[in-house]
């Protein structure tokens, strides 16, 4: 099967659940705000429900972590800060999809390596795809022709036709926004072979992140290799 739409490998596989109420908070408004930041609506609701079922008593922790886990990259720093301050790992484990004893390692390693998940050392593989053909709900009108790694951790810029886009991604999220102009790093070099990375970067020691453009799709893949 060829993947045609943008997707994240680590996207939470959760059964749809209604958004549970928050005491003193407008749950619908919080969901709208999280979705505006890039969280997937159903995943956010299901994660919040899962966190509450696991006994979470701090709603702001739950909102931050669930929103990040559901795809809101702008909540990344807040979620990590909250995870660092927590005593109990049971709820965090339920939200992050790992074992309770792995939460501390996840939080520590994420500070330097935004692609880390417990068990990912020594492995290589696809993290996420972004873009996709505009005609079926994606963002790109043409296949990606050029890409460059930007200075910011987890950031690439890609060009499809005359348009440049910025990608910001991590283990859970990928945000795509149009750029007004070509980034300074743009070289105009188009890769000759489809199986070669369009761009690569090593923002963390031993972690190479590559931008691939598979043939016959309008997607750009992020691919991570670890030493």
């Amino acid at each position, binding site marked *: 099967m060829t993947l045609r739409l943008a997707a994240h490998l680590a996207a939470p596989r959760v059964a749809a659940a209604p958004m549970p109420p928050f005491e003193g908070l407008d749950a619908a408004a919080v969901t709208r*705000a999280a979705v505006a930041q890039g969280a997937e609506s159903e995943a956010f609701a299901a994660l919040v429900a899962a966190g509450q079922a696991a006994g979470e008593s701090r709603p702001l922790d739950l909102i931050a972590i669930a929103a990040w886990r559901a795809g809101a990259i702008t909540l990344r720093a807040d979620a990590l800060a*909250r995870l660092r301050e927590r005593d109990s790992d049971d709820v965090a484990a339920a939200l992050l999809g790992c074992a309770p004893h792995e939460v501390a390692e996840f939080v520590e390693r994420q500070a330097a390596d935004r692609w880390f998940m417990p068990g990912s050392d020594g492995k290589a593989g696809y993290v996420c795809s972004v873009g996709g053909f505009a005609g079926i709900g994606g963002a790109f009108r043409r296949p990606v022709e050029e890409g460059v790694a930007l200075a910011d951790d987890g950031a690439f810029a890609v060009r499809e036709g005359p348009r440049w886009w910025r990608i910001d991604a991590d283990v859970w999220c990928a945000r795509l926004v149009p750029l007004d102009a070509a980034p300074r790093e743009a070289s105009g070099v188009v890769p000759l072979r489809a199986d070669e990375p369009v761009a690569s970067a090593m923002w963390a020691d031993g972690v190479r992140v590559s931008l691939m453009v598979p043939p016959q799709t309008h997607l750009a893949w992020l691919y991570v290799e670890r030493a």
Partner: protein
Amino acid sequence: MADRWHHLSASPTSPRATAPQQMTAEDLVSGGPRHDVGLDERLRQAYYWIVNTAVISPYYDIEFSVTPPLTFSLGDAGAELSLPDDASYSSNVLIPLLTFAVGGRCLLVGGPGRGKTTVAVLMGVMAGTDAADVRRSVQQGQPQLTVSDLVGIPLPKDLIGASRLTDIGIAWRDWLSLPVKIIDEYNRIPTKTQSALLTMVAEGYVESHDQMRRTAPDGGVESWYFTANDDAGGGTFPVIQALKDRLDVTVQAVGFNSRFFDELVARVEAGDRPEDNVPAELVFDADDRAAMRALVRGLPIEAPVRRRLEFFFSHFEFVQHGGKRFEYRTKDVVATSGVDVGSIVRANGGADLEADLGAQTLNGLSVRALQTLVLFSKAMAWFRGSGTVTAADVRAVLPFVLRGKLQPHLDHPRFAEGAEPELASDAASWLTSLWDESGRLFDALNLGRTDPVGDLLHEFSKGLDGLDGVEVMRRLTAIESQIRAVADAGKLYGRHFDDLTALKYLHQRYTAYLAWRERG
């Protein structure tokens, strides 16, 4: 019942392509970090609120497109509908809003009931004035409007007791110090009262009985909105040229789109007015307005865009038969002599009238018009969230800045021989076409890459200190060589006029330097 007035764009209206701004869970719960919303983003929110909620203006005539827009030919009169692929805007809202941002003067023209005054009143409310006070302060132009009606009256008791004019206290009208001033139907105001208005608009003060009052509000940023049902000389009184010239932009109000009739019915039923429902987030206090103007002014225009602008300006002042001396061959010399500029333009057999953009106008551009174009181009770029002014920003505001300032030569073949007769009544499209044509010529002449006159000016700008005689002679020869190149081409256009004048200036500066050096 849902509050249909207070919906603002929740997501950034023009996402900046920088690293994602980090948020906290508290931000999500409280509706977002409002303090982090920049002034440009707030102005965009104001724009979208006005066009989508307040005045319902589905006319997207200021177009931006990354790729050539999809276009459809419609009807049998050359109509074309284009679908741009980047955010595009309604001029009748955006241009007044940019006027608000820069503290400028905007003329809204159009027939009655097209939302001209409503848009102006919204700007007043956005400046922090109560909606009722803004409505009350709208000055209604009418044939009996006196200077006293406009500015205030001398106190009667002082009139009796005063021995000098300075002893007379004036009861100034409150509207004079408001940050947004609205003059309705300004072409119905008598000429003498227009002159008082001109002092206010041009100088920022008003005078009565030897007393003076400054009209600028706290923070120093004031915007003016004038409305008229005609800007072609109609109205009860002709508008004095100096006042007309002070108006930075002119925008056409548009009619109501019948497909949005339901909203109109809802308003009638609710008895609502948009100006009574401006969201608090869209109010800009004096500090905001001062900061906004400073941010707009500080936006850079890079050299390639400046060069395109220079080239555009260069077309219009020159007219081949305008005078005998080279420097006097201008439309202004002709016009101030009382001679018909059109006939002088048509007398030019040395240049191709259809290729000469300058032949399409009866005048050149004033320095004030150029400054306004620069300022509004910056405002447009800033509004779009861009860090620098692009040629697209200039193109977008140019027809509104130059309308009424660059006069079309209606006997030119372009208007007169039926090729594009609509341009005679559609100034905005004509002015845009001038910019586009100038850009094509600029590219065809490869002026973006080679600019020998610019190089000579740049060389001169480094200063003359320590320059030896041989180098000066080399530069003088280079200047003469450039002049000869134009002379050899035979035909002379406006773009050459400015170049030749600049070359003569350089020649004179170097010659004077050489003479001074030889004397010393």
